[in-house]
């Protein structure tokens, strides 16, 4: 459960099919600051502690600086690196979150969460059931690939971010495409937000966002005041304040509800003083939004940093299949029974989800001939 306490939802600004909802923090967090490191356009390779390797286009990293005693921290200066563009170089990072100095950690935004999603039951079948190929048992799901869109590819996003008018004290932004929540971004301090606002264009966005951004233009929420109830200018002012509260409430309880409920499985990535960096995976339920992401909270659970990625329907399906399989020890008939389908149908679903190469076709054809479970 993500807690937006301390962040106030302000009126949305729309551009094309995109709706941008600013979050304002009246009391900024001073002892944790974020700053960007801009990398070039080359692909990056991250070596992970479990000897696996994560390869992705990573345009920038964040550096979190904090102080142990609650004194204000300074945002680390932005570093630009330039490289000649003749050859594609590959940047190698060690670990997703890595300490660069005392009280300073470098992490790769979104990739932290994305890697968590990709590594989901990455090891493959724990028991060598007959249905799985030898490769699936020995090598797991490797290589596991997911595609996302760069922010530049999302129609209107660049323009929407450019013309967006940042509120005083703004520390976050929720981005909607076709009124589906596409991404959430929260930082500790308004000055960090100002610096990091343009980096949203370099982020990854799911397939759904890419398609929804081409839909009908977003409409502003109509403001309607019943003038018969207004007796004085003071009344009118109260009414305006009530409308603003109403919008914030509507947004937090309806529009962003699925995001706040999204973290289902959490993992602590790094502890920095009183702050903890976590990444989370959703429940992969059907018919609701599934966001993966990472966030930093203080010891009382107050949100300091948040960045999420909206999974597309097929990504949700893959996540659901893998979690169900793992829950039943990768036993196909048991999983199929739990899902209420035949083994043959489950195998076809796995194939459509891109895991067909892990199954042995000769065993599956036996299922097709005799639909009753063999075990």
């Amino acid at each position: 459960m993500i807690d937006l306490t301390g962040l106030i939802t302000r009126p949305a600004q729309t551009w094309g099919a995109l709706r941008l909802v600013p979050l304002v923090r009246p009391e900024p967090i001073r002892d944790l600051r974020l700053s960007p490191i801009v990398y070039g356009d080359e692909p990056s390779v991250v070596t992970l502690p479990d000897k696996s390797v994560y390869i992705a286009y990573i345009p920038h990293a964040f550096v979190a600086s904090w102080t142990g005693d609650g004194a204000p921290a300074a945002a680390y200066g932005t570093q630009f690196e330039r490289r000649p563009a003749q050859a594609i170089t590959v940047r190698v990072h060690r670990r997703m979150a890595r300490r660069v100095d005392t009280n300073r950690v470098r992490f790769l935004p979104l990739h932290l969460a994305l890697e968590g999603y990709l590594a989901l039951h990455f090891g493959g079948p724990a028991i060598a059931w007959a249905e799985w190929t030898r490769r699936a048992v020995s090598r797991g799901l490797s290589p596991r690939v997911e595609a996302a869109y760069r922010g530049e590819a999302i129609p209107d996003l660049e323009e929407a971010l450019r013309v967006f008018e940042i509120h005083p004290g703004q520390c976050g932004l929720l981005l909607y495409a076709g009124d589906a929540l596409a991404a959430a971004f929260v930082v500790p301090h308004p000055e960090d937000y100002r610096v990091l606002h343009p980096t949203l264009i370099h982020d990854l966005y799911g397939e759904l966002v890419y398609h929804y951004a081409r839909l009908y233009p977003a409409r502003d929420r109509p403001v309607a005041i019943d003038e018969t109830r207004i007796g004085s200018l003071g009344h009118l002012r109260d009414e305006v304040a009530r409308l603003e509260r109403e919008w914030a409430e509507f947004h937090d309880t309806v529009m962003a509800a699925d995001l706040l409920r999204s973290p289902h499985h959490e993992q602590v990535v790094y502890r920095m003083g009183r702050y903890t960096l976590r990444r989370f995976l959703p429940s992969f339920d059907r018919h609701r939004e599934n966001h993966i992401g990472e966030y930093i909270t203080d010891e009382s659970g107050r949100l300091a940093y948040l960045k999420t990625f909206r999974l597309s329907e097929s990504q949700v399906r893959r996540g659901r299949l893998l979690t169900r399989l793992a829950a039943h020890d990768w036993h196909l008939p048991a999983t199929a029974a739990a899902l209420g389908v035949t083994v043959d149908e489950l195998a076809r679903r796995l194939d459509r989800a891109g895991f067909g190469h892990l199954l042995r076709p000769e065993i599956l054809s036996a299922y097709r001939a005799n639909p009753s479970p063999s075990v």
Partner: protein
Amino acid sequence: MDRRVDLIEAEDVLLFANAAITSTGQREFRDSAERQRLSLEFLHAYVHGNYPDVYAAMLALDVNEHNAALIIFNLLRERTPADGELIARRLARMSPARVYRLFRRLRDAGVNNRRTRAIIRDWLAARPDLAHDAVKYRSGLKAAVRHAHLRLGGELADFLFAPHRRRRYAHPLLEAWRRAHYDKTAVYELPYTVAEGFAARHGIPRAEFLERIAPRLTALESLRLRESAAAHGVDTAADLARMPLVRLAAYALSRPVGERRALEPALRAAAARVAGSGAGRWGHVVAVLDDSFSSYGSPTKRRRPLAVALACHYLLEALASAYAGLWLSGATDPIAVRPVGPTPLGRRILDALALRPDRLLIVSDGWDNAPPGLAAEVLRVWRSRFDPAAEVEIVHLNPVYDAEEFEVRRLSPVVPTVGIRDPEDLPALVELAQFAQGRTGLSTLRAYLRERAAAR
């Protein structure tokens, strides 16, 4: 005539007037230059086709030079019957560089009817010193003379078409131009833009050049070069108080806050000059001024909307007997405003109405976004509940043309919106706003335009 048709026609014309006052076909905060240009050209074609007489009469309004040139071009190209006197008067008010550009455009489009030639001839005949034009706008004048089949007498013709035929020119400026090719001292007798080329050719150090050319600078050049000259230790002696108000405001906004304060007396003096005899006559005025992020404009119109708002602030201060300017960001020090933050127009209008002014002016691009549409609701409730007789005169002035809507963005149907480019036209624009209420027909508007045309 059907009353409804009449109203719609008046609306069409006002829509065009607002566009022609505001847009310059340049990039705006939310529109590219391309979109602005396309949208504007469509409007020109539409109004020219449907209301040819009104189209020409627009020249009597304070339409900006870009649109005035476009109107004259279209009138001459399509041979629309129009008042030649009106065209000549508008051309006389335009900057010569733009007129020469218009003439060249007419040449490129192959527009060479008798009226065009007569207009070029008369305009050139009215120039105070054609030799100065020959030096400063050499290719422009040459093109115009050729295109209009004019015969320039004596050395001017030689200067333009055969500069090496003469050993010596009688006119000092022409002679200076000839000598400047080899004589460094002659460079300083030429207009700045021409001298700059010669200075580069002779390799004159920039500091020395600025120092000696300073007396030859025009008023706007001295303002434009003020900073770069100061970097070389040269004072261009710009007479700030004589500058156009909005230029001065834009210049002030381009300086760091610490330096701006020294410009405040000049801004007040310029505002007082513009206000003239109207000073102190406007009663209790409250202005809601937009300093949201969008008032930054675009890299080509840098801080233009904010400069317009700032200039309006000083002008209204001079015009009103009691005045309060409310900035959207809540800034209390107008000279230190910065284009930053959202546009909570509704709340600020509410604050303004609470002051019970005689007049409320709203200077904003109309993108009310915190929350969107609140300004319209506040104005509607105000008019229906508290002020049905419209005792408080409310006018929305919009410095930005919205290419998609083909007009300046409106705040509310109960409040007239007019475009604004130069705050010096503010009194005339507030007058025009009475037509923008949707109650006046085209015939009344036509009469107003005729009256304006005759007044000049």
